């Protein structure tokens, strides 16, 4: 695990070896240098101050709380913290004053979203990282946003990624590839796959709601993702 100077050093604190492995690989793939710690002591062993650019901490460590570590770091160092948690209602505590985590993600998380969050945090702390190159021909732009079809990402005007789930992305891409056409509901259901039906009796609608929240400036007055009464959905690329 040779850390390239140009690559930001990410400390991964997780008690699950598999998780550490996976995250480590994901970091490396995304152009970061990972350092794995199994517990708080492991993190402390990295040195004082630890030579890391960001700490990715699981909230639940074996026998300890990731919060303790986060508070410790916040008190002593200027190291950004991203936390992983399985439970949503503890977020307030995580990003509360005492802990001061910079961002968080709920498990199970989308790997692309994690990477996007880590990049965003690092950028806030002045670690400009090279983004993966984007081939302009593959982009579908609508409004101030654009879809990077290659990397399956949605980017805002500043090039920041707007995290989407797989299903959300697939839906958005389908819409973007069929602009200005009324798409009936059954067509969408078919496109997204009937294997989702078990849980997805209303997922299309939930997905559209979520998409609107992510792509529309005013979700209650959508300009891109609209509906046609009794017919289906229609996607406008241009904001009219």
């Amino acid at each position, binding site marked *: 695990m040779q850390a390239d100077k140009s690559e930001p050093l990410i400390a991964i604190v997780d008690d699950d070896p598999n998780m550490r492995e996976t995250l480590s690989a994901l970091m490396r793939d995304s152009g970061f240098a990972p350092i794995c710690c199994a517990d708080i002591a492991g993190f402390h062993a990295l040195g004082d101050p630890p030579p890391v650019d960001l700490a990715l901490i699981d909230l639940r460590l074996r026998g300890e709380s990731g919060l303790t570590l986060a508070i410790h770091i916040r008190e002593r160092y200027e190291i950004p913290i991203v936390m992983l948690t399985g*439970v*949503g*209602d*503890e*977020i*307030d505590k995580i*990003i*509360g*004053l005492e802990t001061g985590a910079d961002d968080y993600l*709920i*498990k*199970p998380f*989308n790997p692309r979203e994690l990477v996007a969050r880590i990049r965003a945090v690092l950028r806030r702390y002045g670690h400009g990282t090279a983004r993966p190159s984007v081939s302009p021909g593959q982009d579908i732009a609508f409004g101030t946003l654009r879809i990077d079809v290659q990397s399956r990402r949605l980017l805002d005007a500043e090039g920041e990624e707007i995290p989407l*789930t*797989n*299903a959300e992305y697939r839906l958005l891409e389908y819409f973007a590839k069929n602009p200005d056409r009324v798409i009936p*509901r059954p067509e969408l259901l078919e496109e997204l*796959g009937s*294997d*989702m039906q*078990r*849980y*997805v*009796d*209303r*997922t*299309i*609608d*939930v997905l*559209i*709601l*979520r998409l609107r*929240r992510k792509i529309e400036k*005013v*979700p*209650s*007055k*959508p300009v891109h993702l*609209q*509906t046609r*009464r*009794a017919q*289906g*959905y229609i996607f406008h690329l241009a904001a009219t």
Partner: protein
Amino acid sequence: MFALSSLSVRFRLSAAIAVMFALILLVSVIGLRVLNRTELWMNVLHQDTLSEVSDALDLSRRAADLATSAPFLYALFPPFQLEQEAQNVRENLRLIEAHAASDPALDLPLARLSLAIEDLTTALVPQTARKADLTAIDRDMLRLNQRARRHAGDGSLPLAEREIWAELQQLTASALGAGRAEALIELGEFARRYRVLREQITPRIQPVHQQTFAEIQQAVARSAGLFVLKHNELAARLDAENALFRIRQEAGRISTFAEEKVTQAEARLSQARAETSSNLGIAKKSFLIFTAMSLLVAVTSSLYVSRYVAGNLRRIANAMRTLAAGDHSNDLPRARASDDEIGQLFAAFQVFRDNARKLDRRTGEIRRQNALFSRVFRNIQDGVAITSVDGQIEAENENFRKLLRVTSEKSAPPLRMDDLIARSAFTRQATAHERGGFEEYADASGHVLELRHSPLPDGGAVWLLSETTERKRIDERLEEIRRVETLGKVTGEVAHDFGNILSSISGNMHLLSTATEENASRVRERIGAALDLGVSLTERLLAFARKQHLEPQVTDVAQLIEGMADLLEIALPESVALHFDLPVDPVLAKVDPGQLESAILNLCVNAGQAISEAGSIHIAVTRDATDGACISIRDTGCGMAPEVLQHATEPFFTHRSDGNGTGLGLSMVDGFVHQSGGQMSLSSQENIGTEIRLSFPPLTGHTEAGPLAQARNGSGHALVVDDDPGHLRSTVEILTQLGWAVHQAPTYNDGAQALRTLPLLDLVVSDLNLDHGASGWEILELAKDKRPDCQLIVMSTRRITGMPATLQDVAHLGRIEKPMTTAKIKDLLHPQA
């Protein structure tokens, strides 16, 4: 009688007295009048009758005088005496006439009397002259007779001569007889004899005789002649006798008249007497009758007063006495006998008695109720206590202390509820707010007590203490069983679902190892989809567990629903009509908008599925009483049976026969709403429809900030001064919830002390009326002095008016009328500079 009965006693008595007075007046008038009349009568009798009688008597006397004086008149020969006497008689007659002037009945007798007297005097006046002539003739005759007898007896003379003398003697004797006759017949006899004798003598007369004869002739022819005179005399005597007779007769008549008059007067007198006595008799009778009537009226009145008025009054008084003695039975007639005062008194008494009875009954009821209550109070297994307005325990049953395991001291002064509980081994485990109406207390040995507090209208309260140790234990046990059951069910479902997902992943992983590059991408897609499912399931589980991540924002719920209306319409079958009832004004709530949208979508799709054919869904947004947001989703679907409704929010409960859906929909929504601090309520009627209401609490502040900013807002150090422990506690609770570090001061001294010693202080909240008459203003003035930067708030149960001059220049002095609420204090708290 009926009309009489409606008259008042006063009227009746007045009427009786009036009648009596009228009767007496009548009697007096009658008496007066009768006396007057009698007097008048007497006067009249005295004046008229007596004078009449005297007149009559006078008349009678004079008439008698007249009658006696008239014969005397007859006997008087001297003409002057006669004249005098006649004059007297006439005078007498005039007097009688004057007396009888007024009486026409006397006119005729008096006229006759007067005529008779005239006749008498007329007859008597020439009688004297005739008497003288007749006496002279008698004397002559007597002398001539003696001459003739002497010549006839002288023998010497011739016989023839002597015979002629004898015859002459006879002639003179006849003349003498005629002169002395006392009756006209006798006179006639003598006159005839004289003329016969004179005829016989005349031829044989001798010269010697011639002279004597001539002398005889001469004497007889003296004056008017003897026979005429004698006849006149006798006739006058007859006339006088006749006149006398008439005088006597008329006088008698006058006497009779006078007697009649007297008789009449007597009759009148007796009549007047009879009349007077009859008048007097009538008056007497009238007196008697009216007096009797007066007596009757008086007796009736007195009887009425004594028997009716006084008697009834006595009856009422007796009835009152018996009533006062507690005996409600009385013999007074129920129905009102009359409308007068007595009747009214009766009626009033009856009302009074009825009231007394009612009161008695009620008292009895109250007594029974009291007995019942006290029996309940004593024997109820729960502890019961009643506190007064100031919180002191006024009454408690034995069980109260028994349950609290506190020994009771009879002579102890009254305690406050808190003090009593503090003396026991029990400590509060849950507040009334948490437990929905009762506080829970437990002691070290595991006894659990429930304390219910019901405020009374007068400010006091009833406290009910019940031992719930056993129930609590069973409840807990049941709860645990239920929890384990639910957990098992959820775990099983989750395991099953995750098993499916994992199977899908493992199967595809297996395929991936052998797949061609072309197939690999499809396999990876399937793995991705399975992972999405897993993520989705996790999210739902978290939502149900109320542990999902929410990003609450101040959201206009109405606008949010309006914005998703188009999606809802597409998501629902066309046969389902959607109706929105959204207010124009924003209805704000602090919720995660994305999750709220999902929840509404879920509920609407649920509702759509409940509608088998055509139907409608109404979505309404309103503000509830506390200004919170309320969303109502009402469908006209098949509804739910009560037992279905009961389980509707349980996880993995699905009523759908086709097995569609995870059964997490409602439980998810429920979890989300509760995690957002709201409430979800369901009401449903089979075949009519279902209504689901989501309500969210009102905004507690003006902050638009997210959770991060909220956490930082309003924090600081606060001091609360209040002598009322309840208010102190609630204020402290509110401020603590708002993130303040609160120091509490239950007295003025504690507050002042805290102001001097506390190192940090940003807010001072004080009650206006503190213990021992101290004022909240003093605390605030002290705070202004010691902590010039502090924010000051004064609170009171009353409207706060006026402010000490020293505090006028404080920029942000807040006033709060109790009760204190989060909203009220939030309004006053301004961000710290």
